[in-house]
């Protein structure tokens, strides 16, 4: 990892003078001719400044959502799951839809930081910090649902863990995909958190070094774990990053694979499908990238980071969206083909019902949002248009929410015995709990954007020479 280098700004500049020839055809990753000092000013400066009015307004809205949604959560916990619109036939709906949706969103961070690190895709450097943060916050939001959807969360949150207990021979059921979820999500969360935090340490040290008051010096000093910036420290840092990237990479595949097992291992037509693992992983990356786009387009605008998060970054991500969106589209069509080809009556009905039954609108929303809308990115004009990218990224996230809704609700609501067929209608508490997680997500994200460096300064500094204009 020779392209990540020495901490002190002067040394970095010197080092850049000496090394790294620039590829002639490649567009610079960081524009605006930034110097190492510019990077520190642009990123750490945000942390040091007083909060802006825009930030305070955004924070207030997020907290508002958190409190309003929190009321719904309180009602749910106080009265019971009956506050949701679930019934004897449809036992999961918005709860698990939201869970899978948030977990899916949480996929981009690891993919960007770990997989692209291993593939030495340097364009990731200016976006990995924010996307990793987004991953962590999304996973926190996702993890709310397995707990909140339980009938007895006050017991369930620890009974679902394999803890030694005094109940006798009671133990968790290792056959249950829900238990696999517990392991998958907690592993993913802890690895992502550690990875993210390790990456933050050098930047915390930079802020600590620049800090002008004692409190921030103390806080950022503590957070930076006594980072010295010595060559040995950097070596350890890079080794740990590599090891964690190695650990995190299989998780990108495993988490959503295991989440898909919740459905794939069941007997319900529409759930009982072997295609689910790859299809869910592709869908997760698809939605994760869309969410990263949504957030970064706003962040770069508000924080004026256009030179760091360039159009090229957005275009790269749009290309990932076309690829994964097409994979997802093929998966949808394959499901239909297999339903017909299997000759299983209930399976065939489940898919015809999806497309033409009472939830047809959800199915066709999903198809439009997920399969048709990303195809627009084949046009360079569209995929390099920020407004279009922003709109499509939101459409994709709506589509991916519908995908999970379609899988969960349309499969359950009409399964084997027609006598039990029923509809699901959400209540205000269903919506409120979803809003609560939005409030939580944005509150955490805005706190992050204000108090943490939103771009990995240390890494970005390593690429400005190779790509910066001023330094030639």
């Amino acid at each position, binding site marked *: 990892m020779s392209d990540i280098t020495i901490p002190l700004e002067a040394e970095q500049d010197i080092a850049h003078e000496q090394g790294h020839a620039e590829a002639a055809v490649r567009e610079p990753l960081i524009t605006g001719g930034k110097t190492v000092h510019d990077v520190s000013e642009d990123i750490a400066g945000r942390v040091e400044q007083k909060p802006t009015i825009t930030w305070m307004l955004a924070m207030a809205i997020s907290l508002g959502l958190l409190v309003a949604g929190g009321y719904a959560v309180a009602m749910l916990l106080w009265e019971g799951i009956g506050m949701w619109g679930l019934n004897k036939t449809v*036992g999961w709906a918005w709860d698990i839809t939201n869970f899978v949706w948030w977990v899916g969103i949480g996929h981009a961070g690891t993919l960007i930081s770990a997989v692209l690190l291993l593939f030495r895709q340097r364009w990731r450097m200016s976006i990995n910090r924010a996307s990793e943060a987004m991953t962590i916050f999304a996973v926190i939001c996702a993890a709310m649902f397995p707990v909140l959807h339980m*009938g007895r*969360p006050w017991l369930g949150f620890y009974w*679902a863990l394999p803890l030694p207990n005094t109940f006798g021979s009671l133990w*968790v059921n290792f056959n*249950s995909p829900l238990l696999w979820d517990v392991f998958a999500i907690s592993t993913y969360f802890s690895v992502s958190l550690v990875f993210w935090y390790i990456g933050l340490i050098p930047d915390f040290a930079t802020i600590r070094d620049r800090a002008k008051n004692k409190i921030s010096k103390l806080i950022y000093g503590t957070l930076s774990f006594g980072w010295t910036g010595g060559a040995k420290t950097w070596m350890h840092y890079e080794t740990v990053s590599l090891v964690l990237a190695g650990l995190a990479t299989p998780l990108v595949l495993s988490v959503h694979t295991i989440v898909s097992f919740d459905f794939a*291992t*069941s007997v319900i037509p529409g759930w009982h499908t072997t295609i689910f693992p790859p299809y869910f992983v592709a869908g997760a990356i698809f939605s994760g990238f869309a969410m990263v786009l949504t957030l970064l387009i706003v962040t770069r605008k508000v924080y004026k980071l256009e030179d760091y998060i360039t159009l090229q970054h957005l275009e790269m991500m749009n290309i990932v969206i076309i690829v994964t969106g097409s994979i997802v589209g093929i998966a949808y069509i394959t499901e239909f083909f297999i339903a017909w080809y299997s000759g299983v009556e209930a399976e065939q*009905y489940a898919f015809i019902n999806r497309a033409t039954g009472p939830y047809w609108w959800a199915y066709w929303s999903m198809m439009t949002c997920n399969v048709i809308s990303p195809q627009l990115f084949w046009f360079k004009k569209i995929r390099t248009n920020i407004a279009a990218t922003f709109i499509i990224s939101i459409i994709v996230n709506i589509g991916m929410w519908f995908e999970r809704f379609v899988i969960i609700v349309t499969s359950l609501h009409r399964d084997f015995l027609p006598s039990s067929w*029923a509809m699901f209608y959400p209540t205000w508490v269903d919506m409120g709990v979803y809003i609560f997680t939005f409030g939580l997500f944005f509150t955490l994200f805005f706190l992050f954007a204000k108090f943490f460096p939103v771009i990995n300064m240390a890494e970005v500094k390593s690429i400005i020479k190779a790509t910066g204009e001023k330094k030639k």
Partner: protein
Amino acid sequence: MKETKTYWKGLEQLENTPDFQQRASKEFPEYLPISGDDNQEPSRRDFLKMMGFGVAAVSLAACEAPVRKAIPYVNKPVDVDPGIPNYYASSYAVGNDVESVVVKTREGRPIKVEGNDLAKYNMGGTSSQIESSVLSLYDTERLQNPKISGEDTDWATIDGRIKTELAANAGKTVLVSYSNCSPSTSRAIAELSKKYGEVVHVQYDPVSFSGILDAYEMASGVRAMPMHDFSKAKTIVSMGADFLGGWPNHVLFNKQFAKSRKLGPDKKEMSRLYAFESNLSLTGSNADYRQPIKPSEQGTYISSLYNLIAKKAGVPTVASSKLQDTSILQKAANDLWKAKGNALLVSGSNDVNVQLMVIAINELLGSFGNTIDLSKSLNTRKGDDKAFAKLVADVKAGGVGAVIFYNCNPGYDHVKGAELVSSLGKVKTTISTSDRMDETSSAVKYITPDHHYLESWNDFESVSGYLTLSQPTINNIFNTRQAQESFLTWAGIETSYFDFIKAGWSSFSSDLSFWDKTLQDGVYETDAAVPAALAGFDVAAVASKLKPASSGMELALYTNYSVGDGVQANNPWLQEMPDPITKACWDNYFTVSPREAREKGWKVKDGDMDYKVATLTVNGKSVTAPVIPQPGQAYGTVGLALGYGRTKAGKVADGVGVNAYPMIASSANGSLAYTTAGVSLEVSEEVVKVAQTQTSQTYAGRNTVIQETVLGAYQKDPQAGRHFPKISLASGDKVKPYAVSLWKGHEYANHHWGMMVDLNSCTGCGSCTIACQTENNIPVVGKQEVLNRREMHWIRIDRYYSSREESAITESDLDSNIVSKAEVAADNPEVTFQPMMCQQCNNAPCETVCPVAATTHSSEGLNQMTYNRCIGTRYCANNCPYKVRRFNWFKYHDNKQFDKNMAMNNDLGKMVLNPDVTVRARGVMEKCTFCVQRIQAGKLEAKKDGRRPDDGDVSTACAKSCPSDALVFGDMKDPNSNISKALKIKTSKTSVEAQEDRAYHVLEELRVMPNIWYLTKVRNKDENEKTEA
């Protein structure tokens, strides 16, 4: 210089006496009670004693005994052992119905009512009303004291005043009751007559059988309904008679009918049922051939049938109008004639002329002495519509001085009741024995509340010569008094009613053990016979009086199988029991023909429980209710259930539905008519919700769910109608799903419990649903939660209609809720009932997905649910292919929002709970357990005797209650059990296999391997006829 000064601690040290020296050497100079060396001083033992006492006293004072209400017996009653149930034979007597039952009590409180196996006239079966009646005992709406003009009083005061008023009464004294078949009650009333001059006893029935009674009076000289035996009938034709549901004693009729429908290797014949009716009744839905007809057409159909039979019998025909489509009627006539001697025609009409024609046809068919026994009469319907009409006239004219309403409520359940109640001011003395302030008793002066039947002594002769006893199973909960006791008191008789009954029974036997034996059995049979003999009558003259068919909309009133006539309407178990046909609960509604609904735009959308509101007007009276398009409903007719719209029954029933009793019409000959022509139905655009537990109409052609065939095909091939799903192997071979496995399966060492459900016997009555609710403490959730599709029943009856032929389906049938045309019900469908409960799968999909192993497999094949361990992820319910798991969405006990769930929300109601079954907490999953507590009790009983439990020891609540023996429960490892024999079970260590040709598993292709087998439904239709699938 060294300091050598000494400071003394005191003068004692200075003096340094030997006494001081001795004390100074002691570690504790003061007195300690532990020295023990001196006998004079308290010893160490004393110290320990004191300390022991101190500790004990302090800890005792700190402990507060947390016992609040559970008070142990001071003297334990001889026959009450905590934890061990007692069973008492008694008689269910609510409204005008009487059945012999066995009451289960625990620690002195009745908790369950089951059929009495010794009783010949219900043979152990029950109905939903019987099963629910135990909850009415604990209804807090019952009166707790006698009342004078609405004020609580004591018995001495009220007796004194009633006696004085009755003695001073110058006018007539009338006692109004439902049909009374209790000999001792009649004697008690006679005692009143002795004391106060003639007491006129007016009997009526909410659903009158006056027409049939009057017809038999004219034809045989005795005003009584003779016993019908459906089990002997090979061909049954029902003209609007709902003998499986709306008729009295339908438990017996279900038994008899089901018996005639049983098939097996040794019995390949079954009865054939024709139904000509307006509403789709339980009887009609079990019919092999059913023709929807308008109520007014019944006369024409009867006379045409008479003519068809008369031609075959060679007797003169009568005048009859011409019918358009007689194909089914002709077929019915042929079959009736073919089965002469084993044929039976019944009619539900309350028109005496129609019933006379029925008698005439039955006589031609040789039914009397075979399928109809004139020597035995059914005494639970004796009501006389004319007598009641006369009473109303008398009261209005002021000729009545005293009225006693004995456990009846004409103010609600009689068309002239409102008229009667409003003129009660003209009667000086008004008395009611009602158990609550109902529509009638709230208008009377004296209320002397009667005991519940479970608190009463009584005797009944529901079928002539067939006596049953009723005994109290609990002390009276409130300050009530048995009505007969009141009558005796007012008549000045000192003996208790118990002694009064016993004295009456002394004529049967002088043997001392006779009474005890009869009380234990609950039943006693004498050879008393009704002296009825058929005399001929002028059939042509009767036929000429039959009313011709009329045009226009017609109303057909009916009673459903839950609330029935409305006497027990304040029972939430009944209110929440879905109607077997419409699957609706907590409401009554208009049922109309689907074709008419389509044509006139009355339909909203299938499957959403949305229905338009309509106003029905009959003779200037109108009611407003939702309109449900009901497959099978005759075109141009409206059905409406009686028993709803109570205003003073209690918080459960009040305001539920509309009261249809005022819609009853009077026919020319004085009997009430439950059908009326010339009604108008104004359908508005307002849409309301009717709570239904099932909204799908058909089984969408899924033949691994319902497997059915026709009799002819079955006779040729017992496996006819079976569907054998196959799965493909990698090699391309197709094999049975059970041939492939990755897993060796559970091992069953000793017992393996299973159940057989005979789709051919199940009439869909739903008594199993309520039996299960009673046994297993299943909460009632109320209308809103049923609308949210969260009813909690562990066993449900799935009702499927056959679908319409695809070519007949038009655009107007389809909406976004319908995906395949097979989901559209035929306008006159065939009906299949499928009881559905936990299938106790051997490879249960629910067990593998629970993260905390709260649902596990037992060594006896049960799929167990550990409520304590459940965290409520609902994954098991999602993964259940049968959707039988029920989740506690809210806290249903001790929660004011669910106060209609009276068994769990007040201290009195809670007395009905079965102490062997946990009341489930909020947030846990529950489901059918195969009544594991009953299995356990049966096993213990057998273990005490050192033997293997057999069928007699163990049965589930549903199987026990089933009036048609459609559910058979037992140990499949026991080769002698009924289930092993019926299914021809072959067991191995890990599996069971049913070799009976009709036995199948629902959703066999999933290889979940249930422990419940279904037997194919066989319809007695002609083989060559096309049946809609």
